């Protein structure tokens, strides 16, 4: 708490409250007006005055948080007035956030006479970064003429590039790239600032040339708090989205992207400034307040819930009027029950819609791999082809973050230890270039990520030997699958044993722990000596969205993920024949197995002349599944289903539809099992 004025200042305080409350209120109103007409200089001036007055009033009374905040806003508005800062949507948002914060502080002061000393750091950071950027060299010549001499000099002082860096910058300039300064501010209360900044760093590394990072990123952080604000100097073909995408990391409070003049050769503005200026139109990107990016479709959905909520509110006030007018108890009861039902649905719908906004495509991680593989492959002298698939698979952003390290680790291992050197590969009759495939797909309620290489695989005999020599009980009797599991044992791989033995590298235990414990998933390692290794991660997600076909058996609906479907079909009863393994029917010149949903659920299929069916697919396998009804395609959010309700693994998940109805998602992998 900041030092509140002394107790005798009652009258002064009252005056302050009256005055300042009005200022804060006007500030909000004027900002709204400015939002409506952002071109108005008058409004900007008015807001400037308001913040200035508020700053003075608050400072007089010793309310440092409020006066500091007002001061920041005043500075920002000063820049807008002078034309140094464009009044973008983002800047407006930050000002509005500032005004909101001021109102909160004002409220605290009027309630208790004290203001919070901390809190809402993001608001403050959001504003202060705008000011911190004031001295950016202006790339667009048209914006406000020649920049004052001090500015570029100042810019140079901030960027002491060493010789190597200058050479890399010069190369980038020759390639026609722009020099960009990207400033990342981590949410102040984030305990692991270095980690956040490092995530941005590694993302950037994949996309662009990072020249220099301040504070430096190599090695463990000496002082984590230094990374609250990290500046990246980089060169990139074009600014814009790539850079902002790279900074799409949780707990990043703000990101600013500024284009810089090239520091090399003579005046900073000669030669280098001009081409850059034409490439990047004006200010590259307005500073971003948060890293959340949401599909408008998802927002629309949320909005529709809000609309419903408003209707609901209207209904409640009608009901309340009714009660006041002496409506009879029975009607009130009925209305209340109905109302509470709909509110229940509404809130769970909103909850779900909100959760949906957290889903992002896994390409965020996958996009890092080409660079990683290229670099490692060059370093190790092992040419590799990388094949990625399923990048669009959407997964929860918290899971994405936790996945990045283990996946990187596994790929690194493949290159390091799995793949042989080209000469050895040729000698073994393998293609000279190694191959690593990474794929993601949704299998019902799980996400399956597979990382495979065509390297040397695991030598299970030697691992077993080693296990015996380490005194692992029962090691001699272990089967191959169990031996492979040893790789995941902490202490086994970290002793470099497995590395020595040709297998996986250090730290598979870490991967396993992360996946199994933190993400509640599973890791499986399949390997054939001499042929390669496949690591399969299964992540049971609390949320995953799957496009599905809803089908019905009697009155109950079930869902089949479209990825498991080939097509829909009608199967005449006459075409169904009895084969050894069960029923079958012709399809596309072939005969494939025929199952029925009723049969799976333990009932008799109702005889018909012609059946509705879907054609299921799993890899190369196809099979008919007869259903009572084909309903519609729907995007559904899959939740895991407990083993207790699903002992046969009939279902891969369950989903709650908008109306609260439960739909189980069929696990159709049985068609594959049967074909094995």
């Amino acid at each position, binding site marked *: 708490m900041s030092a509140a004025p002394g107790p005798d200042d009652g009258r002064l305080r009252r005056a302050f409250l009256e005055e300042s409350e009005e200022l804060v209120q006007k500030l909000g109103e004027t900002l709204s007006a400015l939002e409506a007409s952002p071109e108005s200089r008058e409004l900007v001036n008015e807001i400037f005055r308001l913040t200035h007055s508020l700053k003075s009033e608050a400072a007089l009374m010793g309310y440092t948080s409020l006066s500091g905040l007002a001061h920041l806003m005043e500075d920002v508005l000063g820049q807008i007035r002078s034309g140094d800062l464009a009044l973008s949507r983002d800047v407006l948002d930050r000002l509005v956030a500032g005004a909101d914060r001021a109102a909160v502080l004002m409220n605290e002061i009027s309630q208790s006479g004290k203001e919070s000393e901390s809190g809402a750091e993001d608001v403050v950071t959001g504003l202060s970064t705008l000011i911190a950027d004031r001295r950016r060299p202006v790339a667009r010549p048209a914006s406000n003429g020649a920049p004052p001499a001090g500015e570029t000099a100042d810019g140079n002082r901030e960027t002491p590039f060493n010789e190597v860096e200058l050479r890399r910058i010069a190369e980038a300039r020759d390639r026609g790239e722009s020099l960009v300064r990207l400033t990342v501010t981590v949410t102040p209360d984030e305990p692991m600032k270095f980690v956040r900044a490092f995530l941005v760093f590694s993302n950037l590394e994949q996309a662009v040339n990072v020249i220099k990072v301040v504070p430096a990123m190599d090695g463990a952080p000496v002082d984590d708090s230094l990374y609250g604000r990290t500046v990246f100097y980089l060169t990139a073909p074009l600014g814009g989205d790539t850079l902002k995408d790279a900074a799409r990391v949780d707990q990043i409070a703000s990101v600013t992207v500024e284009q810089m003049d090239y520091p090399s050769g003579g005046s900073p503005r000669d030669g280098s400034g001009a081409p850059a200026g034409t490439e990047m139109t004006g200010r590259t990107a307005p500073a971003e307040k948060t890293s959340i990016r949401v599909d408008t479709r998802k927002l629309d959905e949320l909005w529709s819930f809000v609309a419903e909520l408003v209707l609901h509110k209207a209904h409640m006030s009608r009901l309340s009027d009714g009660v006041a007018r002496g409506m009879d108890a029975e009607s009130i009861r009925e209305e209340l029950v109905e109302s509470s039902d709909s509110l229940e649905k509404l809130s769970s719908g909103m909850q779900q819609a909100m959760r949906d906004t957290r889903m992002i495509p896994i390409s965020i991680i996958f996009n890092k791999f080409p660079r990683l593989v290229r670099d490692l492959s060059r370093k190790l002298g092992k040419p590799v082809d990388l094949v990625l698939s399923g990048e669009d698979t959407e997964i929860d952003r918290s899971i994405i973050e936790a996945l990045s390290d283990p996946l990187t680790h596994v790929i690194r291992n493949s290159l390091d230890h799995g793949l042989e050197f080209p000469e050895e590969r040729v000698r073994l009759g393998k293609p000279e270039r190694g191959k690593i495939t990474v794929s993601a797909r949704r299998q019902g309620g799980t996400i399956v990520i597979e990382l495979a290489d065509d390297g040397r695989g695991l030598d299970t005999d030697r691992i077993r030997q080693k296990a015996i020599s380490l005194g692992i009980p029962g090691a001699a009797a272990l089967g191959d699958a169990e031996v492979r599991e040893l790789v995941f044992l902490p202490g086994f791989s970290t002793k470099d044993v497995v590395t020595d033995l040709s297998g996986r590298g250090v730290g598979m235990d870490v991967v396993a722990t992360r996946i199994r414990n933190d993400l509640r998933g599973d890791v499986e390692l399949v390997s054939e000596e001499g042929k390669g290794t496949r690591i399969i991660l299964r992540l049971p997600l609390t949320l995953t969205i799957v496009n599905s076909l809803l089908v019905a058996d009697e009155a109950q609906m079930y869902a089949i993920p479209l990825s498991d479907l080939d097509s829909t079909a009608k199967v005449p009863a006459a075409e169904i024949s009895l084969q050894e393994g069960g029923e079958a029917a012709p399809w596309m010149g072939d005969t494939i197995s025929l199952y029925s949903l009723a049969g799976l659920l333990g009932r008799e299929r109702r005889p018909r002349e012609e059946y509705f069916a879907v054609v299921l697919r799993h890899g190369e396998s196809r099979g008919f599944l007869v259903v009572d009804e084909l309903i519609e395609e729907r995007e559904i959010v899959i939740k895991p289903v*407990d083993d207790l*309700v*699903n002992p046969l693994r009939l279902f891969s998940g369950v989903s709650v539809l908008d109306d609260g109805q*439960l739909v189980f998602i069929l696990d159709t992998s049985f068609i594959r099992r049967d074909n094995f």
Partner: protein
Amino acid sequence: MMKEDAADAQGSPSSAQGSPSRRYVSFILGTGRYCVPVDQVMQIIRPQGILSVPKAAPFVPGVINLRGDVIPVVSLRARLGISDAQAAQGAGGTAGNVASRARIIIIRMGSRVCGLMVDDVREIVDINEASVQRESNQEPGAHAQFTGGVAQRDGTLFLILDLQRVLSAGRDLQGAAQV
């Protein structure tokens, strides 16, 4: 570890021998008194809206939709092999009583959330760890398999459920798993 500490902190300070006591939610099944650790209980609700699921485990009458989460409900009576007649007796005679007093105790076990359908929920009891008899040979049959201990308190016998086993979908489900 943390969890145990928390539970201990909640426990009654009146533990006579100074050994820690743990707090349990007690309930009735048939004629017996059972209990589960209070720190694993999330909520207690009236049974409603149970959707049956084809081919679920035999003691699972279905699932409920609890604020958007789909939670399996275990009939503890079915799980422990207690007959309906016993249940009626325990509830004071009539089947109607059983229905009106039945509750679902929503419990959390690690990342799993499950509902336990019981005949009646009773008081919260502090059970001294030292008084828990771990090897129970007093209650034979299905009970022994699912109880992690027995404690006597004011003349009443409390069977402490072993939730891990009660909710295991493992071997004992193999029977159900045969189509």
